[in-house]
């Protein structure tokens, strides 16, 4: 029989007090002095003729006349955009919703329940939305596991690979426009930057598998390399038609160019090819070869345990959000749609105008729709074999993508579509 240490309440209280003691000590002796030293050297901003220090800032926030424009000013800074709204927090929340939606929709299609117990008794409205805290439970579990680096593995590369994946995914998030003025990086060659960042993924997969020093990840990494590189070419080619019709490479420009008709109406073949190659870039079923197979145990991420595995999955789901958002931007008109949302105002200061709020709502609805389509396609298909995979990519998809480009050029020269402003 295993011995279980007994729970004593006095021990529990003692551990809490010990924690409080250490937190107080560290904060008062180290953190606060650092804050004051930083504030001593950094010049404080002057607003309305007064020098702001932290106490004044907090006092001002209680006054709505001053607080609201302050909040609006923060929302226009790049920091806010990178961290919160079109940036990382938004993407991470979207990825979280996507993970929950994937598990529940897949379960419903397979006539079962999916996550059910986590969070059922938490709130009164949670009873029908069973298991919505399952992701938090999985996160806590992954945080508590030991990160095992295999013997003989190349430790710096092994541990750096998940971080590089997150960085690449986050870089892609920065390029997506979700509303007329809400982009983190509004550059003129946005589409080129997207493809440049997409080139990180095959390289990282190969390095991660090579650094694992084990034969199953090695086979999986090679297959990931074949698949991701082969499918990048049809991906780029299918987007060429859109670029020809829009006349610009910047993503905001492409959205604004879809004025009377969305590009999916004019170039349906390109949309289908983009969707298929996006599924292949995401390593989702049916293009699941590198990851999960009955011949190799889990592919190139076999040796990743604990939070490194969590980071890789987070990067995967953020990439899923990005590619769905890209499909929406390129083919489905981005943020355009009939006006259904109203602006967000607090104390007579508009934080988000009505047009922008409408754009954000439609963007979220359309991206969720495409992501749900990806999830349903996962549910109905088996895995594809490697020779069919490569034959499709190099043979059929490139040929059809070229036909798509010819259609785009023909539409332009026949005057059906004029190049957007």
């Amino acid at each position, binding site marked *: *029989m295993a011995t279980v240490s007994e729970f004593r309440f006095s021990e529990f209280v003692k551990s809490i007090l010990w924690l409080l003691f250490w937190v107080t000590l560290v904060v008062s002796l180290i953190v606060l002095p650092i804050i004051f030293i930083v504030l001593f050297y950094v010049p404080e901003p002057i607003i309305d003729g007064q020098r702001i220090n932290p106490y004044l800032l907090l006092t001002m926030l209680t006054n709505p006349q001053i607080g609201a424009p302050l909040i609006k000013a923060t929302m226009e800074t790049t920091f806010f955009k990178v961290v919160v709204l079109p940036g990382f927090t938004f993407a991470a929340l979207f990825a979280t919703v996507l993970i929950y939606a994937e598990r529940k*929709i897949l379960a*419903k*299609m397979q*006539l079962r*329940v999916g996550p059910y117990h986590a969070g059922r008794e938490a709130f009164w409205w949670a009873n029908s939305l069973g298991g919505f805290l399952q992701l938090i439970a999985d996160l806590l579990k992954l945080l508590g596991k030991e990160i095992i680096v295999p013997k003989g593995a190349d430790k710096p590369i092994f541990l750096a690979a998940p971080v590089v994946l997150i960085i690449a995914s986050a870089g892609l998030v920065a390029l997506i426009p979700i509303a007329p003025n809400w982009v983190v990086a509004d550059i003129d060659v946005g589409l080129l930057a997207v493809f440049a960042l997409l080139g990180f993924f095959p390289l990282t997969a190969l390095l991660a598998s090579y650094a694992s020093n084990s034969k199953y990840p090695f086979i999986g990494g090679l297959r990931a390399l074949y698949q991701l590189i082969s499918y990048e070419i049809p991906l780029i080619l299918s987007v060429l038609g859109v670029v020809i019709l829009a006349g610009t490479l910047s993503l905001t420009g492409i959205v604004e160019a879809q004025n009377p008709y969305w590009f999916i109406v004019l170039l349906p073949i390109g949309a289908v090819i983009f969707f298929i190659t996006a599924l292949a870039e995401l390593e989702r079923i049916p293009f699941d070869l590198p990851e999960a197979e009955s011949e190799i145990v889990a592919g190139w991420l076999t040796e990743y345990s604990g939070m490194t595995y969590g980071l890789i999955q987070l990067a995967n789901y953020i990439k899923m959000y990005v590619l769905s958002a890209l499909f929406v931007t390129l083919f489905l008109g981005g943020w355009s749609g009939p006006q259904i949302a109203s602006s967000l105002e607090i104390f007579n200061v508009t934080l988000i105008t009505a047009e922008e709020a409408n754009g954000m709502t439609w963007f979220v609805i359309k991206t969720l729709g495409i992501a749900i389509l990806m999830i*349903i396609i996962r549910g*109905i298909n088996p895995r594809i074999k490697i020779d069919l995979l490569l034959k499709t990519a190099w043979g059929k998809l490139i040929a059809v993508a070229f036909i798509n480009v010819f259609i785009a050029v023909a539409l332009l020269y026949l005057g059906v579509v004029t190049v957007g402003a």
Partner: protein
Amino acid sequence: MGSISGMLRALASGSKHLAIRRFTLRYPEQKLKFVGDGYQFDPKEGVGIAGYRGRHILYHDKCTGCQLCSIACEGIAEAITMVKIDKQYKQNKKGIMPQIDYGKCVFCGLCVDACPFYALFMTDDYELAAYTKEHLIYTPDQLAVKPKYVGTYEIKIDELGAYHDE
């Protein structure tokens, strides 16, 4: 072309299933209902009476200690041993009754088929988990207790699919 129509057909079928009811039985809150009252055997006719083959129930006022159940089980799982009991019964001259080890029993019910005195039947109870192997050995007194199993859910079929409901 054939592949596109095949893919669309699969997509239609998959999407149709989003409207069909889920089939899962959510176990601890929902328990299955069984037809009948547990497997029993009628030695006069020589045929059994349909029921679920769960834990046994031993009727102390009928068991005579003839050991036929133990002999039947010797070739199968050797789960029944006879032990001496304290209380004296009129029909049980040797003073022994079966003791069943559920760590070994395979719930085949051939011991029930062997008993000629209507003393050993089976019940609906299958929730027999225990923390130690010794707790799985049920003495004759434990076997005399009628189990409290309440199961109300069964499979129902309607236009929206099959599901478990009360």
